[in-house]
């Protein structure tokens, strides 16, 4: 229904368009919007092609190899599994039904696992969680090879909780070849998840960690929020598949990733997870509250370790949006995601293309560029609408509706699911997301735990805090002004000043 409405609106706008909308006279408009489109959609096309190639050709070859080996001999099938598995679940004030579903799925996976001992390590804060988890564990009455470790932390954030849990794993002295699954307390493991992902650690000796596809349910969200989450996960699947081809991932999703135990229990790794910080020239040292998945990916990139994306295993996340409406929920979530991304990507970029790989390195560069490019189109249209004709806004609206429809349809190649809400949500995410990214870029010191709804700002006096906030706003405004000025010059809304203008101005000043 949403799609039909969207198509009707697009058709109506196209048919009722005033004549100037089709006037190709606005050369600068066509050039700028067209050039950005060629560049951005070209890059998107590269990701799509790489993703298709990875999912249709490269990964299935690896999967076939595992299946062939396993089919040949039951002993080999067992040998392909890790001798010991730790499932680390971090949970903080997750609704009880979610915890039940998560733990039940983890316990089922652990029970079915035939490779060896499975230890579920729950990193929790509340006594209520401890009681609930113990009850669930007792009710499940798992076999002896399944154990439960309860780790109660201070409630000072996921990083502390995860680090504490990883140290608890380290104290168990994992066997060589053991694997540690790190997952959130709202992630449900699919059936046979362990059996399908763990053989890659045997098949690929250089593999340090892997992550899988994700899908979501949003129990308490409206259709808009549901579609938005699904769209985000579809886009993630596309991007991760593309990166998977390079075997270097720029994030090891906190929702569920698996690491070799020697990495997950490496004191340096755990220390980085717990105490990661960014040294910023203006803000000083910034402790990173969230984004431990980015820290993990950085640690692995720095070590030059291979990582893998498993596209045919999909974990299910039970989303609890921080607000009931799209705007507030997406704002909170995107601020956290993009903040994590921007706080982490600088140092990954600094590792250089030789260490990270050219494609992945350019993806990191592109993350920095892509926060500005979605703003160019609307700025161009608005400037020309004021300086020349409002028809530019009309033409731009048509362009956006058409291109986002095509983009959304192309996502069918990633996941066979479509919603008529995708095109407008896609544009919303691109435009509003770009603005939020630029907002965060100049306020990297502002961080927020979404679930706890606790924000952190540097402990400064009111005067210094005010000055710093003013500086952040100034830089943000400066960057947006620079972008707008560039577009204004490119569109002819402003004319680049000649040297004689400056000379005349200097003469007037004298």
């Amino acid at each position: 229904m949403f799609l039909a409405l969207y198509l009707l609106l697009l058709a109506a706008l196209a048919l009722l368009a005033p004549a100037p909308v089709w006037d190709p006279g606005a050369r600068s408009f066509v050039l700028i919007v067209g050039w950005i489109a060629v560049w951005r959609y070209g890059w998107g096309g590269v990701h799509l092609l790489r993703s298709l190639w990875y999912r249709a050709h490269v990964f299935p070859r690896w999967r076939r190899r595992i299946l062939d080996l396993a089919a040949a001999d039951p002993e080999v099938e067992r040998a392909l599994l890790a001798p010991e598995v730790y499932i680390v679940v971090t949970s903080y004030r997750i609704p009880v039904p979610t915890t039940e579903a998560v733990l039940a799925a983890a316990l089922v996976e652990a029970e079915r696992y035939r490779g060896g001992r499975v230890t579920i390590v729950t990193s929790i804060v509340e006594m209520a969680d401890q009681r609930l988890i113990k009850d669930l564990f007792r009710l499940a009455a798992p076999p002896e090879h399944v154990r439960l470790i309860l780790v109660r932390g201070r409630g000072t954030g996921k990083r502390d909780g995860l680090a504490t849990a990883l140290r608890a794993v380290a104290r168990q002295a994992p066997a060589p070849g053991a694997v540690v699954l790190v997952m959130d307390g709202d992630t449900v493991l699919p059936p046979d998840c362990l059996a399908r992902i763990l053989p890659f650690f045997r098949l690929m000796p250089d593999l340090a960690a892997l992550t899988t596809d994700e899908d979501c349910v949003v129990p308490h969200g409206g259709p808009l929020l549901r579609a938005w989450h699904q769209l985000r996960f579809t886009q993630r699947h596309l991007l991760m598949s593309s990166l998977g081809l390079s075997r270097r991932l720029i994030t090891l999703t906190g929702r569920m990733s698996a690491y070799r135990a020697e990495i997950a229990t490496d004191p340096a790794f755990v220390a980085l997870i717990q105490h990661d910080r960014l040294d910023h020239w203006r803000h000083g040292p910034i402790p990173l509250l969230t984004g431990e998945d980015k820290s993990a990916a950085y640690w692995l990139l720095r070590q030059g370790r291979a990582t893998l994306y498993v596209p045919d295993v999909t974990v299910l996340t039970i989303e609890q949006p921080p607000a009931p409406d799209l705007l507030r929920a997406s704002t909170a979530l995107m601020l956290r995601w993009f903040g994590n991304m921007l706080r982490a990507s600088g140092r990954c970029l600094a590792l250089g293309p030789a260490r990270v790989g050219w494609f992945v390195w350019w993806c990191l560069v592109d993350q920095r560029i892509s926060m500005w490019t979605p703003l160019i189109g609307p700025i161009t249209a608005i400037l020309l609408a004021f300086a020349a004709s409002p028809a530019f806004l009309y033409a731009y609206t048509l362009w956006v509706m058409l291109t986002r429809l095509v983009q959304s349809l192309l996502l069918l190649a990633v996941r066979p699911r479509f919603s008529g809400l995708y095109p407008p949500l896609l544009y919303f995410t691109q435009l509003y997301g770009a603005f939020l990214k630029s907002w965060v870029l100049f306020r990297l010191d502002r961080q927020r735990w979404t679930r706890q709804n606790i924000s952190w700002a540097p402990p400064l006096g009111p005067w210094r805090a005010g000055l710093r906030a003013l500086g952040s706003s100034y830089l943000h405004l400066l960057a947006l002004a620079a972008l707008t000025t560039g577009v204004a010059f490119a569109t002819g809304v402003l004319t680049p000043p000649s040297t004689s203008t400056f000379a005349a101005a200097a003469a007037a000043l004298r």
Partner: protein
Amino acid sequence: MQAQIVHEAEIHRQHVRLRIPIAIEIDGTRYTVDDWSVGGFGVAGPMASRRSGERFPARLIFPFEDFELSLRLDCQLVYVLADESRFGGRFLSLSQGQADLFRYLVDAYLSGELVSGGDILAVVARDNSGEARVRRLFEGLGQEETRGRRVRRILGSTLLVLVGLGLAALIAAGIYERYLVVTTDRAVIEAPFYRLEATATGRVEAAGQGLLHPGDPAARVVGQGGTAVPLASPCECVIDTWLVPPGRTVQVGGLVATLVAADQPLTVRAEVPLDRARRLRVGQTAEVTVPGKAEPYRGQIERIDFRLKSDRPGEPVRLEDSSRQMVPVVIRPDRPFDFDDLGYAVSVRFF
């Protein structure tokens, strides 16, 4: 504002009095404790070995189903009732580990849980102070700034302020250039010119070269009888263009050549749309860029012809198209153009 809310349940239970049957061993005697908290304990019974205010070591015993757990603690006897029916004490100098374990066990008791075989409990050090955890976590960060960092921050900020000022200047200049400066590429260098007409019919012959003074023969028309009729130069001129090249025949009254005045400076004739030309004034400064010349020429507007012209001769001017009409503007340069530049297409900016 710093977050002040701490969801640490243990803090609120810190002094809750608990009636869970634990035991305390003092001086080798085991007493059943019927009233205790993390701060202290109370026992129903006599106390003979110690007096109120006295400090002594004790062993707190938590009896479980299959085993006992004991904590060695320092205590201080707070009171002994006169009838020796009851005494109480407080715990002194609990170590962090003891306090953590104490609280954990309190929680375990309260929740009805007993630690039994098969479960592994990793009790981490819980910091149960009443401060906001966020502030505690990042205490000290951002407070101290080294000299080098401060220099870097100040230099960077200064640079960005300068960049901001530069951008503001660029925007102002761009607005000025776009909306206040009138420019046109429809301009040409020209000079006053004269037409040389044939006074007879015949073959054209060149008569003079280079600079011609008034009265000098510029050309001749040789008639059929061989009679040569001179065509005199009307000015101090040079021949610009032969309209009838020498050797060709011209009819009487026909144009033979154009002459350019050499005694008057070259000027620029520019065409500017009427709406923009309205901003121009006679005497206003203009800058003329001649192709191939590094330095532009400066000059002033000598004349602006605001008269509207009709598209078709004889018809009235259409006023609705007036804004699209091009207005001729003549610019006289401050220094003369090279004569070779005559006829060059130039660009003009009016300030």
